[in-house]
């Protein structure tokens, strides 16, 4: 009976995870390049010009995947944080630390593309729309996490403190989103909110989903590479690093 039990913790130790990540990275980076190229081709050439927003709407092909990814990465960070606190596994802390910069990058890109989309549509670089404002706050949460982790030298405390902050943050994200939504609708006069995504012709939706998958595989590839750096940085003195040093 025992051999049929899946050993969940087989890849939980940095020593076994390091080579696995090494094998996965080329696959995901190749997949990312293919998917993004395909998505771009659809987004820029195949998709028809939108009746109402003509060419400007093409920005959703990057804006929406970036926003989805920034929110999803924060949830994945919270997941690894919960695991790390529960099982005290070092690797979960490393993964959370590896995810944060990429999440922050996509939160920033989502804000950047959101502003660039708002300018032609509503004539203002920054629109206090509920989604954009929540995205801004998510960006601050990322910065807070990164700042906290960099302020703590001892990696063990940094992981656990970061994990706790990520969990508190993920509980607050829906509350913040709800309160910003409430705040935005009440001040409807003062600000203009992004209209519903333009009526999604099939090809547009397809292009956006492909771009989203491309962004996801890109993120996996980068995060795996960064986690390998963190593993090496923290495990330099350990035996397994010395033995099979460079691969």
């Amino acid at each position: 009976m025992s051999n049929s039990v899946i050993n969940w913790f087989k890849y939980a130790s940095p020593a076994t995870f390091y080579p696995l990540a090494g094998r996965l990275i080329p696959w995901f980076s190749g997949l990312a390049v293919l998917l993004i190229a395909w998505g771009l081709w659809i987004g820029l050439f195949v998709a028809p010009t939108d009746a109402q927003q003509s060419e400007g709407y093409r920005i959703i092909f990057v804006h929406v995947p970036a926003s989805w990814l920034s929110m999803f990465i924060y949830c994945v960070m919270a997941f690894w944080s919960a695991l790390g606190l529960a099982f005290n596994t070092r690797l979960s802390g490393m993964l959370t630390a590896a995810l944060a910069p990429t999440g922050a990058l996509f939160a920033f890109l989502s804000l950047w593309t959101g502003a660039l989309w708002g300018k032609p549509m509503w004539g203002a670089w920054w629109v206090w729309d509920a989604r954009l404002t929540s995205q801004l706050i998510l960006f601050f949460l990322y910065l807070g996490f990164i700042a906290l982790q960099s302020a703590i030298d001892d990696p063990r405390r940094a992981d656990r403190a970061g994990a706790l902050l990520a969990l508190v943050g993920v509980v607050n994200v829906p509350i913040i989103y709800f309160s910003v939504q409430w705040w935005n609708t009440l001040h409807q006069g003062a600000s203009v909110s992004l209209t519903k995504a333009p009526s999604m012709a099939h090809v547009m939706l397809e292009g956006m989903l492909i771009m989203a998958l491309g962004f996801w595989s890109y993120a996996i590839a980068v995060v795996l590479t960064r986690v390998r750096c963190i593993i090496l940085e923290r495990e330099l003195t350990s035996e397994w690093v010395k033995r099979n040093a460079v691969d």
Partner: protein
Amino acid sequence: MMTGFWTSMRRDLVLATRHKSEWLTALFFFVMVTNLLPLGVGPEVSLLRKIAPGVLWIGALLSTLLGLQRLFSSDHADGTLEQMALSPVPLAWLVAGKMVTHWLVCGLPVVLMAPLLGLQFDLPSRSLGILVLSLLLGTPILSAVGALGAALTLGLRGGGALLSLLILPLYIPALIFGAGAVEADMAGISPQGHLSLLGALLVLSVFFSPWVTSLALRIALE
């Protein structure tokens, strides 16, 4: 259980009365910030009245942040925090006692001072009542959530700035509903919705924060 709560609270109150300067500075900071604003924005009353709720609430936010830094740091420095962690009374109760004291020392004076400052912004008297009520509900949230930030950044360099970077995003719902309640009242809409949501936030944060803060303290004390 409760004795631990009361003793820790009384102890902190005694300490606060001895070092009055700590919380008085936070209170004067609140007064200064809210008085600086008209100098920056200009004296016309209609504008001041419009922005008054936001200003008063942000002033309360910042003065709580100011008072938070010394919440655990003095105990951490002389080792009483370790004793509290080792004591049979669950750390969450002792931390809750400290939070209540922080609110009494930093939050309550702000609530009592707010109507006075509200008059400077020519708030109608009915809205002043709502302002006090919203601050009464809101400042404990600020203390509870802020205590978590203080525990996370215990003994770190750049503590003050780091604490505000961590905690201000978590203050946003309280700010929105608190300031929104007063604005709604001034606009003639009933502030009931805002105040009840603020109350919900209060219950949530007061219930969970001591436990989470004691977790953060144990992480910091390792």
